[in-house]
Structures are given as C-alpha cells and as structure tokens.
C-alpha cells in the first residue's frame, strides 16, 4: 500500500507544486480520522490541495466560506416546509461530505464554529428530531489567515483541541514558484485520476494500527506531552491527553508513510510540532518576548533524552 500512497502524492503533485508538508498532513489526518487546521496566508493552494486529494482518493468534496453572517443551519442543514405535501423536509447542509474545506473558520461567530466542531467530534448531525451519521471517511480541513486579526472570532482552546494537527503553510521555494508560473503559462492542467478506493483506505488505516511502537518510544511520547504542562514562565497551559493519543496515532501513520514497520523517535519528533503547536498556550510574557510555540516544543525536544 505504500506504493499507493506515493501514487497519491504524485497525482496531487500534478495540481499542487510543493507543499509536501500539507499533503503529508492531510493524508495522515485522513488515515487517522483526524481533522486538520491549516494556517497560512491566502494563495498557498489550500483549496487546490484538498480538491486534488478528494479526486485522488475518489472522495466527495465541499467547501464552506465562513463569514460573519453564516448560520449553523447553513452548515448542518435545516427542516424546510413543503407546502405542496404539507410536511417538513430535511435539507442537508454542506457538512454531509467526505472532505470539507472550512475556509477562514475564524471569520464566523462561535455558534457557527461550535456547530461544525461538534459535528467533527460526534461525526453525526441532528436536524430537528432526526440524527444523521456523517459519511466515512470524514475529514475537515479548516483554514485560518494569520495576517488579519480584526473582525475575527478566535477559536477557543477547547475547540482547537479537536483538531488533530495544525499545519503552518509557508510560501513555496523560488524553484517551486517558477514551476507554478510555467505550469499556469502553458495551461498544462492535468486531470487527476482516482488512485485508491474507500476499502483500500480502510486497509491502510488497519495497517497503520499494526505498526510496532516500542515501550521506550511510547514513554517518549508521554514525556514530550507532559513536558508541555510543566511550570514555566513561557507556558500558560499545556497539551491535553488527547494530544498523546493524536501524537501516538500520527507517529504511527508517519512511520507507515515513510515505509517503516516500527515507530522511531524521528517520527514522534516530526509529528510533535503539528500535533502540539495549537495545544500549548503561551503566557503573556512569552508573547511579549516574541516566542513562538514551535520554539517551546523545540526546547522540550532538546531537553528530553531521545531514546
């Protein structure tokens, strides 16, 4: 199945040049049934990547642009009165999909964010008196624009914890941007073929679960997460137990994607940054000093002895 993953990446690369970390993160999220929060400035191919992923995996894709006037019913759906038959009909919202791009999630008020985040956690939606299970697989990729801070509704810490990973997308390298420019200029738009089916996706998930992880390496995961909760003038709060579970799953998925049958500390450290960076709260002192969460995670990794 590892060859299939490489093929998926190659297919996505037809539409998206570079952004390897984002593609890897999305695949890991998909394999582990986790949701992804992506932070990056506009124009970094976030929508294109998710769209390409849905095509390569033959999954249904929908996009919601979050705005201040969005309502929960615009996402989950509502009961609509049918005057001809004098009954209420269920109109399902765009959340009934397999890959959902929640664009600029912090543009909507908390009631809308809560509606989405609840559905993400429960994987089911209740409209009126009826409860509907969301399709499998179901993954949300939510985006945040880090530049504009006015008129946004910051996601609360408890809501952020529901995202498995937070990926920080940076600009492509100069070579990659040259390729992007030439691709657009030549109007070379290659079609993306579906590579795997949902059944094969289930097989990959099961194979990831069977990846071996040594006891010492397991303890290393716990040590890293617990270190974020230790008293420090730079940390306001540390990562939750959910972070341990997510780091455990993501490390296995990363090892699998690297073609290994066991997890090494390299997988754990690589996944520590996206798993922990939205779960560690910085103190005011640290913010004033301009410290980033990644620096805190790096300090923890430097301090702990790698098994």
């Amino acid at each position: 199945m590892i060859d299939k993953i490489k093929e998926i990446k190659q297919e996505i690369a037809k539409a998206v040049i570079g952004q390897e970390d984002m593609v890897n993160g999305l695949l890991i999220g998909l394999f582990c049934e986790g949701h992804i929060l992506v932070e990056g400035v506009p124009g970094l191919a976030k929508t294109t990547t998710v769209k390409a992923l849905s095509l390569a995996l033959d999954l249904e894709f929908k996009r919601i642009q979050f705005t201040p006037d969005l309502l929960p019913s615009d996402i989950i759906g509502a009961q609509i009165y049918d005057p001809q038959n004098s009954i209420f009909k269920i109109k399902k919202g765009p959340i009934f999909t397999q890959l959902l791009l929640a664009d600029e999630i912090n543009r909507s008020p908390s009631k809308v964010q809560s509606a989405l985040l609840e559905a993400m956690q429960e994987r089911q939606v209740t409209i009126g008196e009826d409860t509907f299970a969301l399709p499998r697989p179901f993954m949300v990729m939510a985006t945040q624009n880090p530049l504009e801070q006015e008129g946004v509704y910051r996601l609360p810490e408890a809501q952020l914890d529901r995202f498995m990973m937070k990926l920080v997308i940076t600009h492509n390298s100069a070579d990659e941007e040259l390729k992007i420019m030439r691709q657009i200029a030549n109007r070379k738009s290659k079609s993306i073929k579906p590579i795997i089916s949902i059944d094969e996706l289930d097989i990959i998930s099961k194979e990831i679960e069977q990846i071996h992880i040594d006891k010492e390496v397991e303890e290393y995961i716990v040590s890293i997460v617990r270190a974020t909760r230790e008293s420090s003038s730079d940390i306001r709060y540390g990562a939750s137990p959910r972070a341990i579970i997510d780091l455990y799953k993501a490390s296995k998925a990363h090892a699998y994607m690297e073609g290994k049958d066991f997890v090494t500390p390299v997988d754990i450290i690589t996944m520590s940054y996206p798993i922990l960076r939205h779960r560690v709260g910085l103190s005011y002192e640290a913010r004033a000093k301009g410290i980033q969460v990644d620096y805190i995670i790096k300090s923890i990794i430097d301090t702990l002895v790698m098994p």
Partner: protein
Amino acid sequence: MVIRFLIFITIFSIVKAKDISYSFSIDNQTPYKKEAIILDVNISQLDHSQVMFFKFSPKESNDYIFTQIDFKEDDKYHNLKHEYKYRIYPLKDGNISIEFNMIKLVTTDNSVAYAISGDRDNIKSLVKKDIKVNLAPLRLSVKPIHQNTDLVGDFKLSYTLDKTTTKSYDPVYLHVKLKGKGYLEPFEIMHSSKKYHVFAQNPKVTSNSIVWNYAISSKDNFVLPKVVLNGFNPKTKQSYKLIIPAHKIEVKSVNSSTLVDKDDNPLSSQDIDWSWIGWLFSYIIVFLSGFFMPHNIFKRWFNKKVSSFDDKIALAKSHKELLTLLLSSNSSKYREAIRLLERVVYNGESISLSQIKKRIRR
C-alpha cells in the same frame, strides 16, 4: 499695688444714651511717649425690645498705635454687651486725641429669623439699620522722653558671637536678643562699614522681643563697634543703658585667587564638584540602553558568541547527536539527512558520520 489700683480706676467717662450705654476707662491719662496705656471699653444694650449689634474700633492715627488685646461678648436675648481691651502707645508728646468709630446695628427678630432661614444655595441678607454713634475722643497729655532714648520699657539684652578668629571672608555670626515689656519696633543695630560687610536678616519682632541675626565678614582684621541702646523705664522713671561691648575680630588671610567671589563673598574656596561626570555617564548609559534595546543589538551580540547551526553540525560527535540536532531544527531542508541518520541509529545501517555531514553541507 494700691498705686496701680488708683491709677486703674481713673474712669474717663460713663455715658448713657436712650438705648445703649458705654464707658471708657484708661489706666494712665498722662503717659510718657511710647509708654503703654490700657483702654477698657464696655458697651451695653439698654433697649431690650429690639435686636442690636455693635461695631467698635479706635480710629487709625499717626499720633498713636493700638492693639486689641481682649474682647468679650455677652449676647443674651435683646441684651447685648461688649467688652474691649486695647493697648495704646502714644507716638508723640503733648496733647493727643484718640478717636473712635462706633456703629449700632438695629434690627428685628423677624429679620433675624428670615436671614438665618437661608442656606448656602439661598442666601438671605439681614435687613438692619446702621446707626453711627458719635463718641467723644479720649484726650491724653503725653509727657516727652529724652531725645536719645532708643527703648521705652523694661528690657534686657543678650548676645552671642560665635568666634573672634576667622579667615578672610569667612563670616562671624552675631546673634542679639532684646526681651522685655514696652514699645518695640524693628530697627537695625549693625551696619556695614569700610572695614567689614554685614549680612543681615530682617529682625524678628514679637510682642515682647526682637532678635537680630548678622553674619559679618572682612578681608582683614576688624573691630565690631560697641553698641549702646539707651532705655527709659516709665514705671520707675529710670534711664538705663544696654550695651554690647566692642569685639576685635582677628582675620587670617587666604589666597584670594582660590575664592569664588574675590570681593565680598564670604564663601571660601570650593572643591571642584566632579559628581556631574557620574550623572553624565548615567544619562549616556540610559540613553544608549533605550536606543539599542528596540534594535535587539544586545541580543545579536550575544548570539554572535554562540556558534551557528552549521558549526553545531560540524561539532556533532555521533550519529544520534546529529540526528537530535537536525530534528530539533524542524526544517524540511534536513529531511534526507534525517532519513539517513534514522537508518543508521534505528536500523543498524552503516553510513559514516562525515559522509552525512558532507551531504548536509551540499
């Protein structure tokens, strides 16, 4: 005591009008010039059918000065009584008249009730009738004193001179105190001369004393002259002298080039004040700290001392140390090197450390 009593009972006048009565009494009708006399004035309301207020005071004059030393008021209902006591000093001899201002204010109970019914936001004035009362002046026959008399009364003089040997322009301090009963007005007892300079404070005058403080300096030796104050006690009719004897002040000369003021400043040479250098450096340090801190210059200097990441890679002694270093950088630039190192550390493959370092450098 008997004499004092006899003098005191010299009642000048007792006058009765229709509605008020007033009386004046003085203890001495023929005082010496500048001798204190005591005037007692009593004013009483006789018409008890109305409300009255009194305003009384001697008139100002160049012939005498006066001080009110006591006042009593008995403001019983429709029966007002005032008692005034003044000390008066005649300032010239011969016959002088002490005149008075007296106003009687008449009003009614209703007017008073109306006036006091107001408050701070609704002030109601008291409607009253001001009636001037003409009082006969008090005549005194003032006896002259000797022309050279400086003080009239019973006084004692004391003084202190802090030293009689000093340096050029370094002052000697003279403190003089005159204390007693009698007429007191400010005057100077020391004046500058060609030989020395007198720095004087204004004399401090109280009801029974005068204090003088002087600083006297000179370049050379000098003599503080004798001070003689001629006094006259009108009670005993005796003249007396209060004396500060002459004092010879020895002045040791100093090099005038070291003096700040070479003419008459009593300050001697001063050490150079170097404290400004400390202040200057403090300001410079504070300024530079404020200037450089936003630029993070100190941090950059500090970071320069720490070796760069490439140096750290070069110094890594084992595969695991290098792997740890590259992982903590969280940079995709080292992804390939991390994979190689992982294979060596956790898969037992054999790739030399220097070979991996070379790849990283490429």
